[in-house]
């Protein structure tokens, strides 16, 4: 059981201003831009209900192009670190995070942190 925190846009409490994602079983990460918003996909070994599909969690940020290849590398390293340190729940911030809303996870239809079935990566 290993989680990371992600800054969440639109919260009213500065002490509860993040969402969490489990990173147990994550074997691949990639990123794309969907409707002018950066998305990180986490691919898991957990099987979906449909044969040969597996779990993917998509994390949608408010900003366009805010996730870089360096962020993906950093997230890989953080996942390894977290799995080696049970009880450690670090905040994952994008490298260029300046504290603005663009660098936070945004909720909306198809946004936020969404668990769904997907072809294996």
């Amino acid at each position, binding site marked *: 059981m290993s989680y990371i925190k992600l800054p969440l846009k639109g919260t009213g409490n500065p002490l*509860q201003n993040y*969402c969490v994602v*489990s990173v147990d079983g994550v074997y691949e990460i990639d990123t794309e831009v969907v409707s002018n918003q950066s998305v990180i996909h986490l691919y898991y070994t957990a099987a979906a209900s449909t044969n040969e599909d597996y779990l993917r969690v998509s994390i949608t940020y408010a900003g366009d192009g805010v996730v870089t290849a360096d962020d993906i590398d950093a997230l890989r390293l953080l996942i390894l670190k977290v799995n080696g340190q049970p*009880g450690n729940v670090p905040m994952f911030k994008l490298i260029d995070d300046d504290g603005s809303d663009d660098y936070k996870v945004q*909720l909306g*239809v*198809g946004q936020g942190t969404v668990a769904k079935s997907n072809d294996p990566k």
Partner: protein
Amino acid sequence: MSNYIKIPFASNAARAFGSNITIAGSRLSWAATEGAVTSGTAGAASAEAATTVVPAGGSNATFKGATGSAQDPPAGSLAELTLTIEAAGNNYQVGDVITVAAATTGTETEWDEPISFEVIAADLVSIEGTTEPFEMIPIDDVVCVQTIEQNSATVDNKLFIATTIASGDETDPQSQFSGWTVEFDPDNYDVEDCMASICEAIANADAAINSQPTVDFFGGAEVMNITYGANPST
């Protein structure tokens, strides 16, 4: 061994009346002026009567009244009247005082002055937590907390705690995974704050094995129901 968070239930959430509830005559009183009940030709249901409530909050509930059979002489007394819910309304709480308007039209049961009664828990739709004040959520398989989407819109007042467990439901890519649907009282619900509150408890539970933290909802949000099953997103 599982690691848990505890989600507290609302103690007196505002909600609708139950769909088939009746209010016995023994609970009724005249709201201000003593009136009379007449049973009509067969004592059957009255015209639909609107309601008001003190304190303010609930709205849109309506009732019909009946004495059950024609009485000779006419019924006269409130004790012989039974109110039956017609429209369930919303946002009523235990302890609210409902005033039902006079029903003086139609040919069946009538009463000529407003009547009132106090709402008890059995009158309202049930919420979990009347015997257990919280729901235990094992977080070992929880992967994230998300909104629920149906027909390309976010469902109000609900969040889904998704797990890595396949549900067997292949209807939608999201429905393929199971978890807990958490339904909130619409009052004080804020999607980001409620999600963050649950996530904080998950982070705390992960950081301190077996600590079993209780979710502390920011802004007074309250949970009405929690169910386990496939993600209801479509």
